[in-house]
């Protein structure tokens, strides 16, 4: 069995008396798309924040390719190959779509301490950025300020930014949040095309998306993994249906 790309071991985090991550252990295998589902308040975003480094866990370890990355700052984790998207679109509104992605390209290609030379005209940044925009179907909107994009386009841009980082693992925090049916379908198609290039942790409420994309699903409830397995196994799990899926499936 290959070694997991990401391994969370006995991760624990509480906000005051509220235990949001409770002895959580989770593996993400190479090229696997691992969905994390659960009701609101189950601790999904907190989990993503701990993996990407925005929140420090109280105890436990986060192993990336076998190395504990706890204590490593956000930017260093990103340079290792952990890319993430945000539940609330956090593209840079004053930057064009292209510049948003080009900034992500910049982080993995050459030094950003260059004080001269117009970054906006660097083909080495713009070409991979355009490719990533093309991957999510935003090529024609490249010059539009990100703040003026429609909601669904911002979601796609979030994805393009993450892709441009050439991640080893991609943490997607509700990429379909607030998108319409058509846009959801488009984003699912995009993710399906990208599947297998790298590992993905997908936090999502949209069950259509989860069942269409996930290799494995872990169900999170009160900060604990309630069940973990293939889509079919999870769907058949009586505890999962009782706790979460029951209401979602109706």
């Amino acid at each position, binding site marked *: 069995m290959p070694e997991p790309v990401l391994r969370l071991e006995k991760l624990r985090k509480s906000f005051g008396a509220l235990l949001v991550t409770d002895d959580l252990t989770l593996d993400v295998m190479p090229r696997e798309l691992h969905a994390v589902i659960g009701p609101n308040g189950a601790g999904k975003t907190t989990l993503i924040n701990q993996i*990407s480094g*925005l929140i420090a866990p109280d105890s436990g370890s986060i192993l990336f390719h076998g190395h504990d990355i706890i204590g490593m*700052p*956000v*930017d*260093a984790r*990103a*340079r290792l190959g952990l*890319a*993430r998207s*945000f539940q609330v679109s*956090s*593209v*840079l*509104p*004053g*930057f064009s779509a292209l*510049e948003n992605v*080009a*900034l*992500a390209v*910049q*982080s*993995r290609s*050459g*030094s*950003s*301490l*260059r*004080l*001269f*030379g*117009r*970054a*906006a005209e*660097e083909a080495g940044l713009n070409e991979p950025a355009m490719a990533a925009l093309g991957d999510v179907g935003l090529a024609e909107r490249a010059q539009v*300020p990100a*703040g003026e994009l429609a909601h669904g386009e911002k979601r796609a841009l979030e994805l393009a*930014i993450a892709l441009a*980082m050439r991640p080893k693992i991609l943490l997607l925090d509700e990429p379909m949040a607030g998108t319409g049916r058509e846009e959801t379908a488009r984003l699912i198609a995009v993710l399906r095309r990208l599947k297998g290039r790298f590992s993905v942790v997908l936090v999502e409420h949209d069950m259509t998306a989860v069942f269409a994309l996930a290799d494995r699903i872990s169900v999170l409830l009160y900060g604990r993994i309630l069940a973990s397995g293939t889509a079919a196994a999870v769907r058949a799990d009586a505890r999962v249906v009782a706790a979460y899926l029951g209401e979602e499936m109706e």
Partner: protein
Amino acid sequence: MPASLAASRIRRREGLPAATLPAGIFLVLALLPTVTWITGGSYLISVGSRVMIFAIAAVALDLLVGYAALISFGHAAFIGLGAYAVGILSAYGCTDALVSLPVALAVSAAYAFLTGLVCLRTKGVYFIMITLAFGQMAFFTASSLAPFGGDDGLTIAARNTFAGFPVLRNERVFYYIVFFCLLGTYLFCRALVASRFGRVVRGAKENPIRVSTLGFDVYRFQLATYVIAGALAGLSGFLLANAAEFVSPAYMSWQRSGELIVMVLLGGLGSLDGAVIGAAVYLLTEEWLSAFTENWKVIFGPVLVLIVLFARGGLLGLTSALARRIMRA
């Protein structure tokens, strides 16, 4: 939308190339001594030099406030440090710019580095307060330097020489030296904000957490920007000491820091052009109004409030908005 973006887009809509405005500004500045050559007298030249010296510091401050959202309320300290480098060196008989200029830049950059290490750990209003505190620290230190005049300041016997030549002592030559310092500062900052480095800094202004998740150590980029802005203010201080042939703790006072912020806001935040225009308008208004009344700030204050309230892009934003209205009519 940041003012810079708004301004550049407005200009594009009018069909003027973006370089028109700065080209115009620097053309006027370059030709100013010719006017005084015709009219006679050197009053305009010394006012012009003073405007450009503060414009250098204002452009540097715009780098922080306008492009990095770092509202430094202690920027005058760096001007003062640059000026005191000149004053103290010349008190010891070292009067050549080949020594005093590098020292002025190094001292202000070092102070920016050391204080920036601490200041940049804080955000928002705390950043404003802590930069103010470090500014005041420099101010009180200078005030207590009894051997160098303390509160009264320090008169410099003569302007610096350059490699032994007294070039700075000719008003016109000095004017053009200041002019090229400002032009160099402007072009340097222009290149900086468009570079890879500048893109990271501008990105962090909009959303620092987002930029850190892209793999950038935002703190280091901001620190580098802070040091660059500090060193440029040191250049301004070097020139100011030579222009006035005098240095005083007042150069570092928090009022002066506030005036610099006003200059940047007045011209229009985040455009560099605006900083030059703001410095010119502020100092010329001061010059003009203070001829009428000692309490010129009573008039200037309300005007400033109106500009901040109704022209968010400063004078630059106001004029381009007016231009658009005229074009449409």
